[in-house]
């Protein structure tokens, strides 16, 4: 099994599309809440294969998209401190804050380095003991365990110059908030990577409390189409439940070791989401006992006044109420080369994916 070609097999895809068409009667709206799904759906042209009565929506699944301007402004402010190195995932570097961005600060000579893993950031900290190395931690339950592992490592090594600025968030509160807000949905294509860590239990409330189906999906075309098939079947037979399509990776109990690490290092707090506002117990902050690695607690910095971009409807797009093409800035004032909102910058953002593959 090669894990790429098999899951992109044209015959299987076409058979799945036939199955879906044959059982799908009602008009349905399914939402994915993972940037990886947003990209895959557009990259493979999946909407062009589906019958007209199945609508796919992109929800708040792109980590940088749901992050506040204040977060970016604060990282920018950290980067302007003396003797600081900002280490960041590539996505964050181009996100515009209120008046600047990390790539502009980099062009102005601040030390900003792109890393593929927070463990690379730890290495940079080890090699530069006279510098404060800050890692802006974004992402859901997928990246949070790696941040937790880095903190545990830094703690074991007694590393004194490494700091995490955590904006890590957890997925279920956002999924529930969307339904609570009355967004019209008939089921969730649930995030495969998040669920690899958390297991399937975290979505229990979706069918039980809200009566919606929830299928944990992989990222290849066959995965996504099979998940859509499972959701359609649940919907047509009025039997909402949590199912795992991505069985080659996800198990019901998840990755227990990663969960233990997260629980050891983080505590839940109320966090702000673009489009959704403050959601109770939806973000990860470092526990008091790891305070010495907490950039917010250890490094004081003056942050400019936050300005939200005028006219940008990222919030409504993240909720699936509007499509990128509904935004009057889309493909005019806002494009990947000159992004106004975070959804256009991030590779995983709904506007970016729509612009690149569907404009």
């Amino acid at each position: 099994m090669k894990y790429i070609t098999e899951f992109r097999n044209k015959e299987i895809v076409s058979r799945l599309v036939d199955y879906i068409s044959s059982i799908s009667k009602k008009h349905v709206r399914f939402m994915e809440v993972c940037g990886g799904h947003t990209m895959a759906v557009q990259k493979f042209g999946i909407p062009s294969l589906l019958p007209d009565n199945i609508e796919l929506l992109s929800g708040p699944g792109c980590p940088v998209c749901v992050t506040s301007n204040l977060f970016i402004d604060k990282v920018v402010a950290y980067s302007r401190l003396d003797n600081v190195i900002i280490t960041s995932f590539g996505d964050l570097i181009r996100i515009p804050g209120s008046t600047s961005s990390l790539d502009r600060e980099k062009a102005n000579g601040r030390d900003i380095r792109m890393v593929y893993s927070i463990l690379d950031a730890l290495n940079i900290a080890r090699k530069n003991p006279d510098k404060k190395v800050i890692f802006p931690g974004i992402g859901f339950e997928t990246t949070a365990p790696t941040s937790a592992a880095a903190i545990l490592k830094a703690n074991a090594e007694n590393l004194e110059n490494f700091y995490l600025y955590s904006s890590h968030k957890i997925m279920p509160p956002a999924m529930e908030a969307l339904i609570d807000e009355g967004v019209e949905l008939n089921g969730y294509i649930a995030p495969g990577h998040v669920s690899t860590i958390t297991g399937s239990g975290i979505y229990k409330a979706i069918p039980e409390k809200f009566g919606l189906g929830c299928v944990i999906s992989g990222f290849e075309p066959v995965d996504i189409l099979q998940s859509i098939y499972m959701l359609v079947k649940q919907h047509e037979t009025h039997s909402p439940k949590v199912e795992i399509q991505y069985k080659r990776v996800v198990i019901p109990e998840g990755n227990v070791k990663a969960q233990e690490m997260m629980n050891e290092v983080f505590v839940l707090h109320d966090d702000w989401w673009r489009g959704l506002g403050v959601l109770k117990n939806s973000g990860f902050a470092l526990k008091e006992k790891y305070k010495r690695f907490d950039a917010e607690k250890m490094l004081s910095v003056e942050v400019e006044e936050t300005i939200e971009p005028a006219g940008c409807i990222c919030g409504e797009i993240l909720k699936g109420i509007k499509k990128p093409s509904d935004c009057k800035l889309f493909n005019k004032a806002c494009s990947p080369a000159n992004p106004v909102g975070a959804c256009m910058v991030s590779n995983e953002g709904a506007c970016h994916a729509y612009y690149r593959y569907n404009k």
Partner: protein
Amino acid sequence: MNNNQGKAILLGHGSGGKLSHDLIRDIFVKYFSNKILSEQTDSACLPGADEGIAFTTDSYVVDPIFFPGGNIGKLAVCGTVNDLAVSGAKPQYLSASFIIEEGFSITDLEKIVSSMADESRKAGVKIVTGDTKVVNKGKCDKLFINTSGVGYLPRKNHSISTGRKIIPGDKIIVSGSVGDHGVAILSARENMSFNVNLKSDCASLNKMIHSALSTSSGIHFMRDATRGGLATVLCELSETRGLGIETDEESIPVKSSVQSACEIFGYDPLYMANEGKVIMVVDSLDVDKVLDKLQYNTFGKQASVIGEITEKHPGKVVLKTAIGGTRIIDMLTGEQLPRIC
């Protein structure tokens, strides 16, 4: 100019994508403006007596300077030779300028220069002039090279670099697998902990291109798919000439090692750099004999037809995905991978 007040150059301005295009249009073309430059082709087409002259220049800043399948010197020769060749010219003479960081190893310099000599011999060009500058340590990264080149450009080939003769129904050919150079460089980077059995495709294509040109007068356009990859060439072509392009993902050759590395790092092989691949737009009647010629050459064994020019959706490149869906291909924005060439 006021618009640019306070703005600084970002890495994305050097990506070959949209930011580069904007910079060229808003700064360079704005001030240097003339008829030859405004064609914005790989090589400038200079007026001559019977045969015109093609003239081109390129700077090389690749990191690391030694990589599987080549080094910065070999690249500096191939790149400029290819820029001339894809304009339909026969490359003749090159210049080579070196900007060297204080402390750079002379042994390494010699290795690089000797591979430039080898590659020039293979390509049948002469390096006839040059320049050397040394800057303080830390003021440049090891070694940067600029090469310029001139070649004879037969009158019948004048329209190749602009693609003026392209018509709907023409076929699009790529001379082999895409993304090899980009992934080879990626794998050679210090901070990348992955091994892949892959070499850069860095090669001088002038002889292969010459043999194709001598078999067919139906080659309407050529471009080497360097920075920005195959996708960028197709987008530029469709945008500048207002052409519709249809391409089929399944027909685009991609090595499995390139595919896997791209999956892991979230890159798209269609946007990955190549240094030994030419994209041709060919009259549909001539496509088989051009393919034969390309496939006969070492560097064109995997040459394939990947799509065609269409009257539908002018200005857009539409890709039929491997699973049978459709989507558009757009210009790269931002920097996929800095210092690839």
